[in-house]
């Protein structure tokens, strides 16, 4: 068995055997605030199945925030498969999704190295296939997210499928359909339209701008419209709009998570709430376009720019500014980073610093939450302070990679010989 297959099989075993042998793992993990939030928890999905089976409006009671089509499709499993086996089937589905994502990541890695080899005119070697798969499948945060059966996993699937369709199958329409489904599942993925269309323009040389931007945008909008209509058709009301998307935008369900939002809304006078809702929502989207433009692969500056990096940084940015983030969001961004091994990493210097910061914030976060909620000798400030460090990790990653990329571009454009590259120390560009 090749190395990659071994990794895939082992990764699949962890994801399938653990929840099958110990079903309570899923329950426990889906109650941990760092791993699961009200908008993606498996528990509330099960609650939604119950509502559906008993002909109760899916969004009554404010428990369920999952989009209707997801609930309806998954409830079929719950309905037609007898009780002990439906759990196993869910385990199989979640395992399959993660393994599929790992396989696509391997393909994306190969594509990226080939693409950059042709662009830079010299061979670019990335990590081997099995390492790329290990970085995803054995990332503990990804494993925890998967074991908690968070519906975030479906969003990951469709984001990665969108990249897969675009870069491996060279198919913009299908890529946009996948991305539209991802945004339907988790609203913040919407922002990825911008960097992914830019990537489409860069990667598909034979397509005109009109074909990429207008057709792509139109297909995205049409698919989203169709998904909304289908949702309306299955629930016979537009309640889902406010419960699924309104909650994410307005932060209606105030509960602690690893993000930056919750603290301001628990500690703030109600009077200020609209102001902060506005600011946070603008903040979530406002850096996507500049990031995309800065890294856009314009013809006149070739081979500078890297639209794939723009997509990855946007994913990290979304994890930073989401209203209901989990550790899985950052972990997904992190597992895409090894792809840049030989293009950007040689020039980014702070991997060790943010690695340590990440580790310490992960260690302290549950402890501070325990001090606040269980022991009562801490308070919300404790937990939020770690959230801020967690946020700082995102910013570290984005600025470090961006700086690394700018340095790499400078060296390329000025044709600095290979031997001198390590000696040059740039302080501003």
């Amino acid at each position, binding site marked *: 068995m090749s190395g990659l297959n071994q990794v895939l099989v082992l990764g699949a075993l962890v994801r399938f055997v653990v929840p099958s042998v110990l079903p309570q793992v899923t329950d426990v993990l889906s109650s941990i605030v760092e791993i699961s939030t009200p908008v993606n928890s498996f528990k509330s999905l099960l609650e939604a199945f119950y509502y559906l089976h008993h002909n109760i409006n899916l969004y009554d009671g404010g428990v369920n925030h999952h989009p209707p089509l997801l609930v309806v499709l998954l409830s079929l499993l719950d309905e037609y498969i007898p009780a002990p086996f439906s759990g196993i089937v869910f385990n199989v589905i979640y395992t399959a999704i993660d393994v599929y994502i790992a396989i696509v990541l391997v393909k994306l890695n190969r594509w990226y190295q080939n693409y950059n080899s042709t662009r830079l005119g010299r061979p670019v070697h990335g990590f081997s296939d099995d390492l790329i798969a290990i970085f995803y499948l054995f990332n503990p945060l990804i494993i925890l997210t998967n074991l908690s059966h968070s519906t975030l996993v479906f969003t990951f699937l469709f984001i990665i499928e969108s990249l897969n369709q675009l870069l491996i199958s060279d198919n913009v329409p299908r890529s946009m359909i996948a991305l539209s489904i991802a945004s339907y599942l988790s609203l913040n993925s919407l922002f990825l339209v911008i960097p992914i269309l830019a990537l489409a323009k860069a990667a598909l040389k034979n397509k005109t701008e009109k074909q990429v931007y207008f057709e792509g945008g139109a297909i995205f909008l049409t698919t989203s419209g169709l998904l909304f209509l289908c949702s309306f058709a299955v629930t016979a009301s537009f309640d889902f709009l406010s419960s699924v998307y309104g909650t994410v935008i307005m932060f209606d369900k105030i509960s602690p998570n690893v993000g930056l939002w919750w603290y301001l809304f628990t500690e703030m006078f109600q009077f200020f709430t609209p102001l902060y809702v506005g600011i946070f929502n603008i903040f979530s989207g406002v850096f996507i376009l500049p990031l995309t433009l800065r890294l856009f692969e314009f013809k006149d500056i070739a081979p500078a720019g890297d639209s794939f990096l723009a997509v990855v940084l946007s994913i990290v940015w979304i994890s930073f500014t989401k209203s209901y983030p989990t550790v899985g969001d950052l972990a997904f961004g992190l597992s895409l980073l090894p792809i840049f091994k030989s293009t950007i990493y040689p020039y980014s210097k702070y991997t060790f610093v943010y690695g340590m910061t990440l580790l310490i914030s992960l*260690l302290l976060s549950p*402890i501070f939450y325990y*001090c606040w909620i269980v022991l*009562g000798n801490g308070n919300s400030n*404790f937990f939020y302070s770690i959230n801020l460090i967690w946020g700082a990790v995102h910013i570290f990653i984005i600025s470090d990679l961006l700086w690394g990329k700018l340095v790499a571009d400078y060296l390329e454009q000025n044709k600095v010989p290979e031997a001198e590259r390590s000696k040059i120390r740039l302080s501003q560009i």
Partner: protein
Amino acid sequence: MALAETISRKVHKLGLIPKFIRLLPVISFTLALGSVVWLLALPLDGNYRNTYISENALMPSQVNSYFRESEWNFVRGYREEIKLIEHSSFNEKNSLVEKWLTDIGLVTAYHQNGSANDTLYAIMHAPRGDDTEAMVLTVPWVTSEGEYNEGGLALAAGLARYFSKMSIWSKNIIFVFPQDSHAVLRSWVEAYHTTLEQTAGSIDAAIVLEYGKNGDYFDYFEMYYEGLNGQLPNLDLLNTISNVAYHEGIHCVIQNTPSTELVRNDYYSRTRTLLRGILNLTLSGLKRDVPGCAAFSGWQIQAVTIRAKGTQGPHDVTQFGRVVDTSFRSVNNLLEKFHQSFFFYLMLSTKHFVSIGTYLPAAVFIAVSFAFSALGCLLNSGVEASSFFNNTGSLLFIFTVIELSSGVLAAALPWITFGSPAEYQDTTVAQILFVLSLLTFGLAFTPLIMTKTKKVKFSKSITFGLISLSLFYISMLITTLLIVNFSLALTVGLLSLPLTFIQPIISQKSNLTKSPQVVSNRKRAQVKVSLCLLVSSPWFVVFLAGSYLDPENGISLMRGLLTSLHELQCWTWYVVILGWFPAWLTIALSCVFGNFEIDYTSFVNQEKKSI
């Protein structure tokens, strides 16, 4: 950014980074020293703060207590009765007290804990409250010093009678009479929050009363406040009690202050209180003579134990009752749970404290010291960085195996202890400690004996990688415990500090020179390594500290470690066996199987480069 840029350019220009790397062991040790110095500087004037009541609603000592001479007669009467039944069966004791309490009109109930005698408790429902909050007065039948708690029981009965006549209570009052204030009380507290049928709402505060055979008079009283797992009661409760005592004219002391030094307040006395506080908090739950307040930990209950001292003194037994009465009246005033003031503090005396922001750097320094020595171990070992990366997989594998086997021990050793018959339990604990100590000595001194013939040998990168990983692991352990259990973090850090010396000793240049002294130098280095390993081993420390703390029964600390998890939910055992021990074991194993033959040529090249 301009400043950062300038600094970074300067650093490069002066070549500070290679110097920094070479000096890492020194920096690491300086930081550890800094931690101790920081701690010892806390009791200096200006570094501590005076206590104050933060929650205004408490208003301590603002009420006039009527628990005076008229009640003294009742207390005396109860005490005579209790004296008579000292040697009766436990059921008779319980039923006597129960009769008194039901006569007063309290609701009584029993908690069957399955292992010891039933615990009697009584609830006085508040005349003015909404029946959702409660205060607890706990009176164990035996004090933590093993004395028959006759004064405490008589006082409790007298206080119950007195409380029931007052209409001002807005919180329920629960009286608990456990057999002891150790596991029995703990199981009552747990049952109260889970299974008991007769309950009286969430408990805000608890006072454990110990007044042994002191008779009618006592000299001063002592307050105990350490909870389990590093928890402390809200400082406001401590302040309330010491404030009440002050207004009653009674001396209130903490941390075993001797009776001759009740009013002493200088650097020495404050340091002694500080260090004893840290020691007691580290050992809380591990010792048998635990004051009952620890049993309330983990349920958001602020609990203290007060114990009367001396028999001559100027104060009479009703004054002790008045301390309880007035403190309860203060807690009764609260509209919210204790949330003001501090939960993380170190006391220097009843009137002085240091808060978390001031003392935390001491433990942070230790954590950083371990992190730096982990880094130094990688960078100064003379092994290429890439070979560490290539071995990451096997490093993690070895460490995981060691961690998993420690996990097996963590579950198995307490299981063996509880599995043995009660009368042989001490023997079992002694045997476990003996085996572990033997392991310690064996591993620590094997490198001395087998110098030439090693059959299994780790490669150099694995050896130093493992040492570095273990040091980093301890650093992370300290970081995680930093806030929740400062004392334990600091103690583990200081006690395992010799582990950071091992790599610098091994890599000393004297090991490589080809002079005639080489053999004796090597030998000396090996003896040093063995001593470092021995001193920093958890079992050596447990053995030594156990014998020092309890000279008659040296294994009591080990028994505390093995049983406290099950009996009290005190997780110090996990910190030792899953945190400290695997790190030590990994370093010991890499010293035994490690490859320390330092490549002379690479070292010389490195020297040249750095020059």
